[in-house]
Structures are given as structure tokens and as C-alpha cells.
């Protein structure tokens, strides 16, 4: 799932009276545009702002939708195709909606040796979502299987949203983290 799903195609046109989803109608706020322009000024070439601007778009739009890519291209003044190419190359730009708490479970070799495969199954069981299949009905959880998170020494390693790593050796620890998410101790998606 590294490509965005187009909101409207010739095979599946919008029904009469149906509107595009919110993520496809939005544009950047003036603050976000100013932020992108400030980043552009830091580098010798404005193209270098593509990656940071896509992070800003992810924060503003919730995920990197097609409209978000177009907004980035317009804000920097570069071709839309370039932004699409970059956004689909990197895996940390989510091209589909994710939950409020996005669990990224590393299943690479060091983590797998210490039970990451079983942990991934537990995460899926507890949250009720499959990896890469969008958020749970309540919008709280989504799960992704990722490659090495450089936490091999504290394996198995899980990243919740963008800034928390945790040592999840057993199911109790996982439940603890999920409860902490619900209590609001972890930053929700969108930073």
C-alpha cells in the first residue's frame, strides 16, 4: 500500500450529490505555508523542502492524500509529479488514513528472534485491525508491519505514532501501552 487510492476515477465516478472526502478538499493553512517557506529559505535549493513539507502535509491533512501532494507542489512551486514520486517512495508518508494511535511493529530479524511475530499477532488481536488495513472502526488504532526501527537491543520493538519506542516483551506490557494511549499519555497521530 505505497500508493494513494484516487478519490474518483473514470470507473468509479462520484455519485450525484456526493462530495470528495475532507482530506481531498483541504488546502494548507497560512501558517503551514509560512512554515514551508521558512524551510525553503534554509537550503540552497527549494527542492530540498519536499520531504519536510510532506511531513507538514501529513500533520495538516492527517495523511498524505493526493490533495496534500498537490498542495505541497503548489506551496514550493515544483511539479506535482515530483512530489508524487517522493511521497510514494518513502514509507513514512502514510498514503491512507491511520488511527489515532498508529502501532508500527518491527518484525525484522533481531525482533523476530525475541518474538516479534507473535507480538504482531497479539497487537492485531487486541486492536482488531490487520496490518495495513486502515484504522479500527472507533478510529483509535491502526497497525503496520515495519522494517528495523534500530531498537534491536530492546527487541521486540514497537513505535507508537512518531516518537515513542517501547520494549514490549509480553502481552501485559502491550496492554499497559494501549491503556496509556487511551489515557492520553502518548501524543496522538498528527505531529
Amino acid at each position: 500500500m505505497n500508493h494513494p487510492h484516487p478519490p474518483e476515477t473514470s470507473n468509479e465516478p462520484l455519485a450525484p450529490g456526493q462530495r470528495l472526502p475532507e482530506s481531498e478538499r483541504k488546502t494548507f493553512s497560512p501558517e503551514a505555508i509560512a512554515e514551508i517557506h521558512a524551510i525553503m529559505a534554509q537550503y540552497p535549493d527549494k527542492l530540498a523542502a519536499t520531504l519536510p513539507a510532506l511531513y507538514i502535509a501529513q500533520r495538516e491533512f492527517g495523511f498524505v492524500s493526493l490533495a496534500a501532494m498537490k498542495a505541497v507542489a503548489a506551496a514550493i512551486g515544483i511539479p506535482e509529479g515530483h512530489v508524487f514520486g517522493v511521497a510514494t517512495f518513502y514509507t513514512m508518508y502514510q498514503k491512507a488514513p491511520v488511527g489515532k494511535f498508529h502501532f508500527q511493529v518491527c518484525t525484522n530479524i533481531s525482533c523476530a528472534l525475541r518474538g516479534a511475530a507473535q507480538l504482531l499477532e497479539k497487537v492485531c488481536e487486541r486492536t482488531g485491525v490487520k496490518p495495513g488495513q486502515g484504522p479500527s472502526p472507533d478510529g483509535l488504532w491502526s497497525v503496520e508491519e515495519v522494517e528495523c526501527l534500530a531498537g534491536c537491543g530492546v527487541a521486540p520493538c514497537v513505535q507508537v505514532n512518531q516518537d515513542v519506542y517501547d520494549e514490549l516483551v509480553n502481552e501485559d506490557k502491550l496492554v499497559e501501552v494501549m491503556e496509556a494511549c487511551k489515557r492520553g499519555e502518548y501524543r496522538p497521530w498528527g505531529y
Partner: protein
Amino acid sequence: MVAIRTKPDHHTYTFPGFGSEKFPNLLLRGAGDLNNWHLPVYEQQHEGYVAMRKALQMEPVAVTDEVKASGLRGRGGAGFPAGLKWSFMPKDTPERKLTRYLVCNGDEGEPGTFKDRVILEYNPHQLIEGMIIGGWAMQCAMGYVYIRGEFLWLIEKLEAALQQARDAGYLGKNILGTGWDYDILVYRGAGAYICGEETALLNSLEGRRGEPRVKPPFPAAKGAFGQPTTVNNVETLAAVPPIMRMGGAEYAKIGSPKNSGTRIFGVSGHVKRPGIYELPMGTPMNFLVEELAGGSSTGRKIKAIIPGGASCPMLDEKDFDVPMDFDNLKARGSMGGSGGLIVMDESVCIVQATLRLIRFYAHESCGQCTPCREGCNWMQLILHRIEHGQGRMEDLDLLASLTPRIGMRTLCPLGDAACGPMDSALQKFRHEFEHHIIHKTCYAQGSKLLSSVGAH
């Protein structure tokens, strides 16, 4: 200001005798102490910025010569002498003034490697100091630190540390009265293993897809934004301040011949005390695994060790005594790599482990060169078929015939990296593959490295 994370890791960082003359503590000073990243702590307790003051009083060429004399080899994986790399940078001539850049490679994505994370977490000022010295030696205009996107909390920390250095006058205009302007910017990657390759990293830094470039021109001629650039690993740059403090000749005495200095080894997998250990180069592998990391955590015998991150060929029992430096590991048919040891005990099915590793390379291949894009994918498909009981005996020859057609035929070493584990597993554990094909089950019963829900 953002909150800096205060949660400690549960790694092991130290061992009895660490910090003595035999096991010098050069890179992991203060590891484990979460307040260690503050400038006053670094200056007062860890001889911080002493080396920088010394270097800024020397001629830039003399600094490069000092690093050359130390024999420091790049810690990213290839082991290229750092001083030599620095000397490739073109110098200013009266007719032509150049803009040079120093780029720090903090895109740590190699499975089994977690050393840069520790330096950035506990000792960011040592990296900043190393980058200032490197910038002075090559007379760079800017330094860029490229850090993988997952390390957001470390980026926040490094930016706070950079601000402290700026406030102290170590970065910015006219640094310490030398008339030299230099600043460091942090650039956040977005989750692509390939960006650890230096030209892919430069492409990513320019805001493009992280696809490796055709070489030549090498980065020293045409790098970031078309200007001469040197790319060094986090650990390489963090090793520069100790070199300047103690002198290159003194540093060269640590470690084994032609592989001087200390190196951070990360141990993960089936050991009692997984963690980060700083040891002189050339320390025997079984000393690290058995004595320091405590040996097998499960009580079963250790079957295989990957000595330097996932791309290095596996070693079996007869090579566990290998001294860990670039040359000795190469002589035993493996690589020094990035210094991450992955320890596997007897319960591990090598077919599963190889499949998991190859799946990683198939997923992370950038898709630019056909041998790697198609070859890794085919290796994954064939291994998947063997693992799931549908393998044929001729598949083993097919796998063996694929690797020479991938290795050395791609723009960057990712294709070679995929061949390392594949070739070594086939050579050293062929009986496990054959067992899988004949009996349709694992040789090591009960090995569960692959999840049933996983879907890349």
C-alpha cells in the same frame, strides 16, 4: 520548546573494566545518563569541546593529517579511511572559491544496528564537536545531519543541543574568532533503508527519491546540491574529538593493526544482556558474546552469528573466535559492516531467518537496477516456497545461481548486501534447506520467526 524524552532504554551500556586503559571509553561517555546531552555536562565531565578549540588553532590540513595518522576507518560499513576521504575534498584556489558541505549519515536502518541511536541519545555534543572539527578541516560552509525519520525524538534532542552550541558561539558566524562561518542543519529522512547509501542520502537531502547515483562523479567532486561533499557516519564523526584530544598517533595504538580505535558493537538476539558495548577493534567475538553479553539467553547452544548487521554473511561455530575488525572478518568470509551482532541459537530455523532477511531487501530495494529489484524478489519467492513446503531440490542451485548475478552488478551495495546472508546460509546450513525440502518442516522444530498476519 518540545519536551525531550526522559525514558531510559533497557540496554546494557557498560561492563566491569569499561573505561580502563584496556577498554577505553571514547564514544559512550555518560551513556545511560539522560541528562548527559546538556552542554555544561559535556564540557565539565567529558572534556567537551577541548578538541574543537585545539583543532581551530591548527591549520585545516594539519587536522586532516591528524585524522589520517589515527588510521580511523569509516564506521558505516565499508571501512574506508576517514582521513583519506577528507583529503579528497577539493581546495580553494585563488581563482575559484568552492562551497563545500559535510554530511553526517544518521540513517541507521541496518537490522541489528543501533549504535547511532545511542550516540544521538546520550552524547549529541560529541557528534556536533566532530562535525565542527570535520567542517574546519575541509573548510565547509554547512554541515547537514541526515537522520532517519523514525528518530523524531532524537532529532528534537539534537536540535536542542545544536541551539546550545549556537548560544555558546561554537556555531554560526566567526566561530571563536577564526573568521570561519559554519552551521549545522538537521534533515529528517522518511523511512527508506536505501538512504543509508551515501549518494542516495544526498538525493534524499536534495528532496528527491532516495535512489543511488551513478559514480563517478563521487560526492567529493559533485555531492549535495552539486557541490563537493563528504559523507561520514555518526560514529566516525563522533570518534574525531577523542582523536584530536589524544593525538592521532596515540589513537592508532588502540585496536589491531590497520584497524585502529574503538568501535561500538551492538549485540541483539538470543543473549542474556543485549546492548551496546564499546570495544577496541580486534576484540574476539566470543569474548563479547559469551563474557560481556552473557551468552545464550535460552540455554541452548548458539548456532550462528551475523557479525555486522544483516548484510554480512553469517558465521557458524568454527568462526566464533574471530577478532572483530574489518580485515579479520573479511578473511573469514564475512564483513565488519556496521558492528551489529545478531546472535541466533539452535531453535532458529535458518530458512526462516534467511527468508526474513531477504524479504527486507526485496522490500527496501529502490527499484532502480534490475538485478537487485527482480533478483531479491525472486529469492524471496523461492525461499517462501521452500519454507512453506513446496520447495524442490533444484531450487537450491537456482538460489546459488542468482546471487552472482545480483552481486557487483548494481549501482549501490544493496544487491551485494542481499547476497551476503543468502550465500552464507546456503553454504553453511545447506542441510537445513534440504531438510525443509524433503520433510516439509523446519530442521529446528518450533521456530516462529514469521507472523501469519504479516503483509508487506
